[in-house]
């Protein structure tokens, strides 16, 4: 198990009802974190148009996560 801090933004924050939580998760990749937190909060959002960052660096869904990492889950962006 790894201790992961997960941060939620925009629609994800509203679905989760909080902006951040620290969880003990059995995960290998950023995708695993997304899937487990999605189940936890009952979100329907697929990851296809979403983005992820690990410790303030943009990452891929296949990027590995380590104990103590902060994973930032970004729903589809819409700047401009």
């Amino acid at each position, binding site marked *: 198990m790894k201790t992961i801090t997960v941060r939620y933004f*925009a*629609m994800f924050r509203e679905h989760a009802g909080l902006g951040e939580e620290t969880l003990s998760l059995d995960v290998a990749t950023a995708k695993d974190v997304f899937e487990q937190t999605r189940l936890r909060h009952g979100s329907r959002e697929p990851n296809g*148009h979403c983005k992820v960052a690990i410790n303030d660096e*943009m990452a891929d869904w296949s990027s590995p996560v380590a104990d103590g990492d902060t994973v*930032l889950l970004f729903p589809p962006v*819409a*700047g401009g």
Partner: protein
Amino acid sequence: MIEVTATRIEPAELQASLQDPGAGGFCSFEGWVRNVNEGRAVERLEYEAYEPLVIAEGEKVLAEALAQFPYLEARCVHRTGLLEIGDLAVWVGVAAPHRDEAFKACRYIIDELKVRLPIWKKEHYVDGDSGWVNCERCAEHGAT
């Protein structure tokens, strides 16, 4: 330089800051809040941004534009918070030796910013409903 601000954007000041003796052309783009989106009447917008990565990713976009369309100065400012119809949501300005680089760099910067930066837009509709742009429909389609 890229910035995020919760206060009104002032284009004249931004344009003045890009003045350069070597510049023969200046091009800017202003994104305004529109009163309708996909057939729904919009009352106001709300922008949320994750500033550390807006800055980091935005600087990459500016560097990419510079490599392709050599300009002299470029700036972008994006609003956060609640905006009313007609408000300025984003401003991009580019000063370059010639107009071609100015136009092309400006276009590249705004196009990339819209799809890459962690910025989210919530529309508040006239009928009282609200929704995150690009999010609700994405969930309905179930794409992965």
